[in-house]
């Protein structure tokens, strides 16, 4: 079975800091794989191994996504090849434009049976690129997968909604979004990372970004509400009494 995994490369959210004027400083945030995509990569690697197939990672974004450390990190996870469109014109796309770019990328790759994506991206957590891509390719989309069993031209997907665990049969190709609980991403050793350096990275140029349907401003730190910040450092009887009195007054 041939599997493509949509992989978002973005700045590490933990290293974003905000200045007193509310601007965000991204300069120390190095490119990383979006957290939930790690699970999708793991599921793809396991499915490819179980079916003697291939797992391809697919990514599009601005020039920063060709970061060599991140590229190796992707390929160290049981992924065979990476198809990468790194182009500043592909930076900060909305989900509709991203799906268009990924669909164009997929056209330049070997045909795949299954397209996996993570539950949501670390920056927007919008869960939109999966269904947008499925719409673009006119194939089915399934959210919330916790297990995938490949069959002949179809797959059985166990998935979780807010109210039920369902078993779905779907003809392939299809786009399936993977929940974090579906697998535990592997810890890559030095050997995996060295081997990753020898795997093919296909730089795909000339992907035309689609026009955006929505327009986002530059991100700023959220306005913090003014708080009293009265802290009792020791929870003794007096402190608890005063704390309780403040709470009673607020209720």
């Amino acid at each position, binding site marked *: 079975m041939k599997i493509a995994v949509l992989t978002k490369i973005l700045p590490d959210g933990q290293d974003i800091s905000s200045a007193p004027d509310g601007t965000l400083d991204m300069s120390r945030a190095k490119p990383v794989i979006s957290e939930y995509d790690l699970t999708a990569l793991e599921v793809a690697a396991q499915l490819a191994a179980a079916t003697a197939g291939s797992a391809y990672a697919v990514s599009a974004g601005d020039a920063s996504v060709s970061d060599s450390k991140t590229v190796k990190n992707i390929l160290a996870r049981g992924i065979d090849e990476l198809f990468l469109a790194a182009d500043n014109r592909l930076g900060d796309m909305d989900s509709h434009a991203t799906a268009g770019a990924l669909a164009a990328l997929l056209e330049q790759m070997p045909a795949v049976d299954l397209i996996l994506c993570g539950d949501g991206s*670390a920056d927007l957590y919008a869960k939109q690129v999966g269904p947008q891509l499925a719409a673009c390719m006119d194939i089915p989309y399934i959210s919330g997968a916790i297990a995938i069993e490949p069959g002949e031209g179809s797959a059985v997907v166990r998935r979780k909604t807010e109210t039920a665990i369902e078993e779905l049969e779907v003809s392939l190709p299809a786009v399936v979004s993977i929940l974090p609980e579906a697998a535990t991403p592997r810890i890559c050793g030095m050997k995996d990372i060295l081997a990753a350096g020898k795997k093919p990275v296909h730089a795909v140029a000339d992907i035309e970004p689609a026009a955006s349907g929505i327009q986002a401003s530059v991100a700023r730190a959220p306005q913090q509400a003014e708080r009293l910040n009265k802290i009792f450092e020791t929870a003794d009887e007096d402190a608890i009494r005063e704390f309780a009195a403040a709470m009673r007054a607020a209720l």
Partner: protein
Amino acid sequence: MKTLVIAESEQAARELSVGTRAMADEIVLVTFGNPIPGIADACIDISLPDDAIIEDAYLTLGDVIDAEQPDAVFIEPSSQLLGLGGRIAALAGTAAITGITELEDGAAQTNYFGGTGTRTVIPLSKPVIYMAGLGSLPSGGTAEGTDEVRSAEFRRPERSAVKKGAQALKTETSSLPEAEVVVAVGRGFSQEEQLGLARDLCSAIGAELGCTRPIAETSNWLPRSSYIGVSGLMLSPHVYIGAGVSGQMQHMVGCNRADMVFAINKDKNAPIFKQCDYGIVGNIEEVLPALTEALS
């Protein structure tokens, strides 16, 4: 302005219908086998075959949108409706606006990196597709509408998923979105039995119990519907009390619009102490029972 509200749960149907009333002259509500009269100007109910999934209702919704011509579509961000919404947005040639914390004159404040940042997103085309979670629209309006219920035929895509079986999960509808007082528990609770301490405080002060994501998703001590923060509930209660909550951005973004924030944590360096009105450094095992007694 005409809005289309698409909801799976009755709670979201009500909140989105009431929340869009101030901006819309006409509201059409779309439901899936559970028509709700009286909260919109018309309700269109789509009855799915037993073996179909909501994500595959996009052709049907495309028909509804063509017929109704809404200016804006408000969708409950459940996992299936996020999928359906993505396909509807694709049909409209646009991207849905997601992660909304506030909406004013069509422009949405949206979360960036789990609330580390915020962006203003404006639509460039119509219809605008908003994924609007509980608490993201103004509350306090009243439900009004007609009893008109129409049904729309489910039009199955040529290639679709076929449901072979389903096992219901334990669900509870959450009364947290409307709660004036919220007690939230976090990782400071190391055993499930300790939740009783928080429940006792809730009963004493008439609060609803919520939690951080790990308590709902890793420990599974409380239902998923009760976690506060990114991808969960976005609340603006009068009083928020965090017990054993460290104050990670991902959680605080869901409660930092509270009028008053109280914090109880044994770690004096917990980030929540920088974002609260009153904080007390102490063990939940000692502080919570003492508070409950003082406030009973």
